[in-house]
């Protein structure tokens, strides 16, 4: 089989890359190792309304709930409320990823991409050392999909980059290991996302509750890998739910790993581009990855169409992708990596003190950067090393 571009992985990043390239006239194959796109879900499903809407028209079929804002709780229970339009990238819509991911793949198919499910990449094909496609297993048969460019959108477990010589392996401090329940509890506030901080609740991470309508919510937590132990995320989540939501009915369980390494050294090689979690483009502070992956996927699709047209699919031809994503989403990812490295060192007492210091301020109109600026002003000794992030 021959095409211009083969995209490995039909998550939001891969589908947007495939759709964008296909719309520009390229012959695109979008392959997905699972038999059902979007399932199993490994995500808390929260995204900002405005940023999502800038890339795709919202469809009620894949929006589970809309929220008004977020509540942030310190370990001692003190809290602040942030309004929806300023709460960062993680609130606004709570998606139904099983439907959303499939809809994005269908958009790619409508744009002309050939979608192949149950097709797992085995290795890159090389001719005279140059990457020329992907060897894959499809329904138990090995097939070659020849292409000028391979886009690796193969998620946290990405292999495409490693096959191309890009070391994407995550060290324990580079990953949040997570567990989540979709649960019913009559006390769930359908209008606010909630975030609970605390080293006992979730070492080096946080607990989240994202409402999905009618008193359903994704309640989950992430633990920084360097402070985790076998099975810790599930045990801690059970403890949290038993203590705080004793009447909750759990109807689904999700586990996963979120890269929080920040930008990797490079995301392109000759004939290869990495997108989304495979490129470690998820946000180190929030763990959010959907929108960054989609944005990177669009850039990748645009750049690859130019590269194929010009006949230069080597590093030089793909360099515009590297530059463009670092100029857009890359800056925030790098800033948030510094924040993450700082905040995972804070004690519960530090977190309580920070929350108390800002409780008398009006944070409802602040974004994360604005809130950080105020926190630094109020706690200069503790947060002095973060001042470069708000300059």
């Amino acid at each position, binding site marked *: 089989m021959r095409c211009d571009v083969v995209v490995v992985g039909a998550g939001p990043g891969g589908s947007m890359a495939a759709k964008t390239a296909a719309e520009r006239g390229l012959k695109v194959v979008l392959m997905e*190792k*699972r*038999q059902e796109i979007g399932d*199993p879900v*490994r995500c808390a499903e929260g995204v900002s309304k405005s940023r999502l809407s800038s890339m795709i028209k919202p469809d009620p079929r894949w929006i589970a709930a809309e929220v008004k804002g977020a509540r942030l709780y310190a370990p001692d229970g003190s809290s602040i409320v942030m309004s929806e339009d300023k709460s960062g990238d993680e609130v606004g819509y709570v998606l139904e990823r099983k439907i959303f991911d499939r809809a994005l793949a269908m958009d790619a198919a409508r744009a002309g991409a050939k979608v192949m499910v149950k097709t*797992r990449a085995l290795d890159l094909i090389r001719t005279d050392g140059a990457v020329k496609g992907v060897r894959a297993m499809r329904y138990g048969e090995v097939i070659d999909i020849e292409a000028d460019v391979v886009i690796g959108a193969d*998620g*946290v*477990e*990405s*292999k495409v980059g*490693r096959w191309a010589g890009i070391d*994407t*392996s*995550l*060290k*324990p401090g*580079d*990953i949040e*290991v*997570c*567990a989540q329940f979709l649960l019913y509890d009559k006390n769930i506030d359908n209008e606010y996302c909630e975030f609970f901080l605390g080293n006992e609740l979730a070492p080096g991470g946080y607990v989240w509750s994202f409402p999905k309508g009618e008193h359903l919510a994704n309640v989950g937590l992430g633990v920084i*890998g360097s402070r*985790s*132990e*076998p*099975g*810790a*995320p*599930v*045990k801690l989540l059970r403890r949290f739910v038993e203590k705080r939501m004793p009447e909750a009915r759990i109807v689904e*369980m*999700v*586990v*996963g*790993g979120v*890269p929080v390494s920040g930008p990797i050294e490079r995301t392109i090689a000759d004939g290869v581009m990495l997108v989304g979690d495979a490129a470690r483009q998820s946000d180190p502070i929030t763990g959010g990855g959907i929108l960054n992956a989609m944005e990177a996927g669009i850039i990748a699709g645009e750049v690859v169409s130019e590269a194929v047209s010009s006949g230069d699919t080597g590093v030089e031809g793909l360099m515009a992708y590297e530059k463009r994503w670092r100029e857009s989403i890359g800056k925030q990812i790098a800033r948030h990596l510094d924040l993450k490295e700082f905040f995972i060192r804070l004690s519960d007492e530090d977190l309580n003190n920070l929350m108390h210091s800002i409780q008398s301020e009006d944070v409802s109109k602040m974004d994360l950067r604005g809130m950080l600026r105020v926190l630094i002003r109020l706690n200069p000794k503790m947060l002095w090393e973060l001042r470069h992030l708000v300059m």
Partner: protein
Amino acid sequence: MITVNRYVCGYCGACVGVCPVCALELVEAWLEVSDGCIECGRCVKLCPTGALSLEEAQG
């Protein structure tokens, strides 16, 4: 050797992402461990469900 309790595994792929030698592969709900495994135990420590363990090879 790494053993997988398939009744506990949540097939999330976190172990695959942290494997330094690319020895793990997630195939739908099935986690494969290849001969390239160096038994570093990183995947065991990070598994969210505790499905992996590092055991002495038999015989």
